């Protein structure tokens, strides 16, 4: 990213969290990752004035308390936060989930691959794409 603003990762599975962080490390991605365990916490975190606006949100859909789609709807209703691009990173390949996510203006929907190597490749591609993109301030 042009700016070195952090990523937000909304994910509750430990191994998945570790995977993202390891991938970032191995790919030498400089941006920080803020981890939030669910949508509720994410909203609270983002609404906090002290928070630096992230460059991108990586969102898992299966989460407790507030599932991914709910979170999407809420954040897209928030004028301050709706311009942050959101990429869904999830296990579900269910069409309903895919359609609902795009109906709520996600900027990508990626199914987590099984092995780490492929996962790293995914992260790389995502990062490269969003590097090329202009991002809102």
């Amino acid at each position, binding site marked *: 990213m042009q700016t070195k603003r952090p990523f937000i990762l909304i994910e509750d*599975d*430990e*191994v*998945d969290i*570790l*995977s993202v962080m*390891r991938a970032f490390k191995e790919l030498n991605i400089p941006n920080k990752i803020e981890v939030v365990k669910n949508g509720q916490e994410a909203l609270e975190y983002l609404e906090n004035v002290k928070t630096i606006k992230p460059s991108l949100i990586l969102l898992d859909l*299966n989460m407790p308390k507030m599932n991914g789609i709910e979170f999407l709807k809420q954040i897209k209703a928030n004028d301050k936060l709706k311009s942050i691009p959101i990429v869904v990173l999830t*296990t*579900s*390949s*269910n069409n309903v989930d895919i359609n609902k996510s795009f109906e709520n203006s996600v900027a990508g929907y990626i199914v*987590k691959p*099984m*092995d*780490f*190597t492929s*996962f790293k490749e995914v992260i790389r591609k995502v990062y490269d794409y969003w590097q090329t993109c202009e991002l809102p301030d």
Partner: protein
Amino acid sequence: MSQDRSDISDDNQFKGEVAKEKLIAAEGHISAVRLILVIINILVYLLFVTPENATPWLAYPMMTFSLVYSLYYVFYRPYLRYPSLLNSYFTTLTDGAFIVGWIVATGISESPFYLLWCLSIVAVSQRYSFSETMLISVIFAATDLTLINIDIDAPVPRAELAVRVLYIPITGLLGAYFSSEISGQIRDKLKTQESETKARKAEKQARGLLDDLNEQIAEKIKAEKELLKMQKTLEDKVRERTVDLEEVNKELKKEITAKEKIENEQQKTLEKLEEINKELESFAYVTSHDLKAPLRGISTLSDWLYNDYADKLGDDAKEKLGLIKKRTQRMNELIEGILEYSKAGKTKENPRKIDTLQLINEVLGLLNPPEHIAIKVNENLPFVFANQTQMLQIFENLISNSIKYMDKEKGKIEIGFNEENDGGYFYVKDNGVGIPIKNQEKIFDMFQTLASQKSTESTGIGLAVARKLVNGMGGKIWVESKPKEGSTFMFKLPKTILGHHKHIRNT
């Protein structure tokens, strides 16, 4: 009306009564006067008539006769019932007889006085009208006066003369009075009788009309009664029919309700089936996803262990980690297999006309069979009307299986269609490894694969999926195989899919 009629008759009756009374009274008077005059006449004859001029042998009987006659008038009343006719003839005769008799009996010249008696009797007769009586009186008075003048010799005493002169108008008047009175009575009586008759006639007529009217009313009432009866009968019939119809209606309603109930139940069953289907689908989906998550964890961690601790791990440990990795991969494939199987046949695609020849060529392009396998595709492959993805999947699975299990150096796979009377079947024939007979049924079940589990790449769902799809279309799939020689997989599709689409294409 009856009131009036009786009034009329009553009136007439009353008048008639009155008239009768009067008449009787008048008759009585007349008769009395007659009698008196006759008696006076007899006395006068006996006293004044000289024997030489008279005719005594005639006079005496005449006097007797008139006496009797007068008595008869007085006492014989019943004749009053037949007054006018009888009376008038009788009176005329007798009057005539009297006049003649008295003339003869008394002689003209000597005693015109007696002529006067006749006159008086005649005058009293009820037959003559007032004017007639006056006329006769005048005639006889004139005669009398003439006679007085002729017979100058015989001096007439002044008293007698006075009586004679007075007597004429008196008796004349009397007669006239009585006759008019009586004739008037008779006229009244006739009138009342007439009116009585008229009234009776009118009454009869009226009664007749009334009877007619009554008759008509009676008839009308009768007709009305008939009508009422008919109406009632009709109403009863209508009620009967209505009751019948209502019953029929009830029955129909019952049937309709029953039918609706059945339809509802059918609908419910269908809905339930759909629900179950959906549940199964989501179950398969959820299960596979829930299974994948920890699997990924295991896979990733074992990767990292391998990478991070490569120098610290011995070969043995590395090998074991490698096996873990492989197992996780295998599990992943199995889960994918479940997912694929559950998804199979669920596309929202609409069926369309597909050229199976073209489709198979596409599949071969995708699968890219190795060079040592010769593929033969028969031209007689038909058009079908089906879901494209599903058809593709079936062929893909069958052909990829044939490729996978090709153990010969010169492999041969033939794909085609055999036409039969009731349709036909597709076939994929290979000279591969074949299938032992005991496995030929099981092979279509899930996760059935010939090769050993650890070495194979196959998850063993290809045929299961193919069967699910074929059965879903209403068709049938089976295999004929000789171990070591090869297998022929065949599947039939229903006529609705095969249709009449013949293999007419522009080659």
